[in-house]
């Protein structure tokens, strides 16, 4: 699910940047620090929409750096267990297939694919196929997240298409 969310980010600024172009520098630093990152708590931060407050810039005792606590509004993407979403298949092998849902990669194991869809090792590209359906690279599928695992910089998800109203979509 995509969300619009207020977040904050702390920037430590070296005194050599204090000067007329400091604000522009802070803004571009914020963009490059947070956009494209991923955390378990907030999911993927896709893009900053607006900066609400750049912060006061408190000089820290001891080293002269200024600390800016910026508040900004961003588009974030976070998958939830039990959520149904659409994705595009990127890779098929005999263990199952991988589908991309935005920045997230979801693995669907062959045990969570309807038994009628069988892996066809001779097809090119590799595919899961039944009499009237085929799952290969670039097929659009509707899947349900059954579990997520959170890494420091990435989220991995396991999905299923073995339920009603899930599977290939046209």
């Amino acid at each position, binding site marked *: 699910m995509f969300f619009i969310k207020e977040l904050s980010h702390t920037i430590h600024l070296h005194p050599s940047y204090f000067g007329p172009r400091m604000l522009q520098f802070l803004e571009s630093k914020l963009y490059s620090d947070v956009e494209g990152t991923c955390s378990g708590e907030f999911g993927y931060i896709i893009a900053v929409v607006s900066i609400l407050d750049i912060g006061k810039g408190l000089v820290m005792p001891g080293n002269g750096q200024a600390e800016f606590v910026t508040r900004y509004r961003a588009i974030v993407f*976070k998958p939830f*267990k*039990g959520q149904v979403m659409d994705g595009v298949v990127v890779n098929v092998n005999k263990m199952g297939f991988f589908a991309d*849902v935005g920045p997230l990669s979801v693995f669907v194991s062959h045990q969570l694919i309807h038994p009628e869809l069988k892996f066809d090792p001779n097809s090119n590209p590799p595919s899961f196929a039944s009499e009237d359906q085929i799952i290969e690279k670039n097929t659009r599928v509707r899947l349900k997240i059954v579990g997520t695992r959170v890494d420091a910089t990435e989220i991995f998800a396991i999905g299923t298409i073995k339920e009603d109203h899930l599977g290939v979509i046209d």
Partner: protein
Amino acid sequence: MTSLRHRPAHEEEDASTLRLGAEFNNAGCLLISEVRYLLEHRPSEKAAPDTAVYNKTLEYVKTFAKFDKPEAAAAIRETLRRESALTQFEIAQIANLCPVTAEEAKSIVPSLVKIDDEKLQPLLDEIQTMRKFQS
């Protein structure tokens, strides 16, 4: 030991029962169509971030956005807001997945069981009509 006992119980996230965790229970959900609009109409003074996350998302929202115009997305929201029992998350899920029947809607968004089929179906019909006639 006391610190262990007093630690607040971790709430397990589960979309089927609408538990999204402390950070997201009240956060504003975006439709895929709205994300597409936001990404394609960025303020011109700022270049688009060149990250894998951004590019994959842009491609994804272009593939799966159901409504081309922001007005259409706003109209969908307006329609679904009439049913006051729907949460932000459910509204976004219905608008993103566009189920055709009430039965399908309840299967892909399990928390919708609280709404009668007779109330849900007209809303879904209206969304299908809007999808068909957006030009």
